[in-house]
């Protein structure tokens, strides 16, 4: 962290933001011209990117359902982005209307927007915090008022950790979160990878390097290593579309082309 915590972040709307690019990929209009331009450039490199994003979103949905099926009723969604259809609380409430969700993001615009949407919702909270500061994040008053950390929580780090570079040691960060969670808690991760299609992923990395959120692709082993301290849930870390697909979901012929790994672990 080069920026001392007392120095407020400057908001530069000319700089594409991962949250708004993601919204654009999903067909939303919560984005600005620079976001769209960057997203278009990305699509130029990987035309299936919108499909990849949808698949990621579908994984998020499956992971939330899995958590609910496992009896977990609280969600900590870090890197939640701009609310869009199929938000965690919507998915969760289909099963438990009182499910609790804490949305966390660093993107001040995404946070402000989320707050506007969820202002009146008693079971959700939106926290502006950085995943790289676990202790500070977990100590947030609003988060504490919404989630009971003494009971199991599903920690969602979906399409988040590839925005954390090696210098910030994501495995250590995850370990520090894991320590704060009650046994029975779940950890869901989806993560970009270069395994499979190197030329394109390199081009992607270069593209994202010029956004507010540079990318770090990781290998399967590196992603699996993020689950240190968690017991793997079947089928472990796999290419994202292969993680417990719904019966009606089409499993693509070449899942590695989705450039993502996904997995869920349980804290013993």
């Amino acid at each position: 962290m080069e920026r001392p915590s007392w120095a407020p972040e400057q908001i530069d709307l000319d700089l594409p933001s991962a949250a708004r690019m993601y919204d654009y990929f999903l067909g939303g209009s919560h984005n600005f011209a620079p976001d769209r331009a960057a997203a278009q450039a990305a699509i130029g490199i990987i035309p299936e990117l919108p499909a990849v994003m949808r698949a990621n979103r579908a994984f998020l949905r499956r992971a939330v359902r899995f958590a609910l099926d496992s009896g977990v009723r609280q969600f900590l969604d870090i890197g939640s982005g701009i609310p869009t259809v199929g938000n965690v609380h919507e998915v969760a409430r289909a099963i438990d209307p009182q499910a609790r969700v804490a949305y966390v993001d660093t993107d001040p615009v995404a946070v402000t927007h989320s707050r506007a949407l969820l202002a009146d919702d008693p079971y959700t909270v939106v926290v502006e915090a950085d995943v790289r500061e676990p202790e500070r994040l977990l100590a947030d008053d609003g988060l504490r008022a919404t989630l009971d950390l003494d009971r199991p929580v599903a920690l969602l780090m979906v399409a988040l950790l590839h925005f954390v570079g090696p210098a910030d040691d994501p495995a250590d960060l995850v370990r520090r979160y894991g320590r704060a969670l009650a046994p029975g808690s779940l950890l869901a991760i989806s993560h970009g990878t270069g395994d499979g299609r190197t030329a394109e992923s390199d081009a992607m990395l270069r593209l994202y390097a010029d956004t507010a959120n540079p990318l770090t692709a990781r290998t399967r082993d590196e992603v699996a290593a993020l689950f240190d301290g968690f017991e793997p849930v079947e089928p472990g870390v796999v290419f994202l579309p292969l993680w417990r697909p719904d019966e009606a979901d089409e499993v693509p012929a070449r899942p590695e082309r989705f450039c993502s790994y996904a997995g869920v672990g349980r804290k013993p």
Partner: protein
Amino acid sequence: MSSGARRRPAASRTRRHVPAEAARPTPARLADAWAAAIAGTSFVSLTRPELARHLRPLAARLLAAPLDAPAARAAGTEVGRALVAAHFTAPETLARSLVALGGMLPADRAAARPSVLAGLASGFAAALRDRTLTEQESIRQAAMAAQTRAERALRATEARFRAVFTCAATGIALGDLTGHILEANPALAAMLGAPPERLRGRDVFELVHPDDAVGLRELIYQRVATGAADRIRTEKRFVTDDGRVLWGGLAVSVVRDQEGRPSYLVAMGEDNTRRHELAETLTYQATHDALTGLANRTLFTERLHRAFDRTAPAERLGVCFLDLDGFKIINDSLGHPVGDELLRVVAGRLADAVGPDSLLARLGGDEFVVLRADSTGEAELVELAERILAALDSPVAVAGHELAVSASIGVVERATFGTDPAEVMRAADITLYWAKAAGKGRWATFDSERDAAQAARHQLSEALPGALRAEEFTLAYQPVVDLTDLRLTGVEALVRWRHPRLGLLGPDAFLGLAEETGLVVPLGRWVLSAACRQARAWLDRYGWAPQVSVNLAVREVCGASLVDDVRAALAGSGLPAGLLQLELTERALMGAEPTAALRTLCEDGVRIVIDDFGTGYSNLAHLRHAPVHGIKLARSFTGSFDAPAHPDRADLAIVRALMSLAHTLDLTVTASGVETRRQAHRLRELGAEHGQGWLYGRPAEPAHIEQLLAT
């Protein structure tokens, strides 16, 4: 349009096929087909079955659309909007919906179909447009709100920083890379005595004391600005606009831009003038003598050690160590204020004489020392010592007194290699002592042989007590004969030290030391009893024994235990008192107490003779009543008696006089140092009764005496 023509059969096949299979599709079947068509075209969070279920009411609405065109269109519009509401926002979703629905609406609804589909498309487009605008609006508002929030936070932070800047007790300046001040805070302004606006735009280095400015500039540009170090701390002098000089503790940091290039300098300073002055005063006080203002022992020691500094030692060095002769008397008789004033004046004269190239320090009391590092040789230091003595030649006028002063100086000059500070100071100390012993008002140079001899003496005196315990002393006996018949009448017991390392040492080597250390008393006691035991052993063995003569040191004679010691030796050995003779010097005879003790011993029967008579100061009147039986003539008078023609006339006269005096007082005379017959003959002619010397035997082991006894 040929391709269109080719496609037609397929299309008509479909059309034919559908009504045949299901003339009126149910909402469920329509919804399933519709879901299959649009699945995956937009991002929705629904699974395929969920999607189909979701589409069912819409399908029902379409199937129930009235034939009347506006109403049919309204139904379509509703469904189009509903699609967007379910997040089907992709154009592809619309396209596929139109194709799928167009093909599946039942034939009896054919009239309504265009209106329904037109309505669906327009409803979709309108809803998408609304949605897009709404989302754009909401994200824009979110962005604005976030920006406002961030700006407010930034302003708050800036306000806080401004507060820190203006309220800080530390002086802070922000400068460009050339050192020109962009901003200065009130604390700095107060420190430099100029309002902040007067500081703005000025060159920092102009505010720095000229002597320090160059160094500071180099420090900043070489270390900080080039990136070698991001912060320097230093202390420099500043000159205020009103001409005051102040010491500023300064921390200069460089602020870099995102690319890491230096862009600003930030300097923080505090006024350390008071602390600096205090520190200077304290250092000065710690290293200087309050009375004279000269360097003190601390500073001198530090400089002395520095001359031996491993990294840059001085090649040679010299020290003049001096103290004033008789200063204590002046101090005691005229009082301390006068003494102090004298020291001040002397210090001034010394300083003039010594000059700036050497360090002059007062070590305490009236001790001064001059340290000359990198000296060229002893001559240089001797010359310096001469100058110092000359500087003290003229008397000092203090409080109405004209005081004559002189000093003794120990001079040491040597190469630093092979010695150390402690060694130098020890040598200086000894040398000063020599100078004093040699008669004051003079200098002495260090003499290593003399020092070694003294050191050896010192070692001996340290070993003495142990030697006595270890019984390293023995006695040798020298015969004394009757000059008329050469019969053995006595022996003189002479103490020897069988030193384990140095071999056999004569009394000259250690008696002086024993006197100084007081060890002569126990040693004398041992000699007495050993001699008495020996004489008694001879008596027992040969039936007779010569009288045994023991030398008494002054301290023994004056000691309270003399009578007891002699009696104990006699009693312990069983020797008759008459066989013991005590030899003492003229000096030992002075005073009433020794005389009383000797009288007692005399009454006991012990014989007493005066050794080396005529060489000391005799109270002749006293001699008349003293309990003395005889005298021994010193060899210094008898030496010339060996001359072939005749003895030295003066010697002859003296010996004659001494003999006649002795005989008048009824004292026997023993001539010592008799080496030749001629000597013996002449001395006997003059009346000496006894003789002692090499002619009759050197001091020897008891066994040698026994040969004489046996004959």
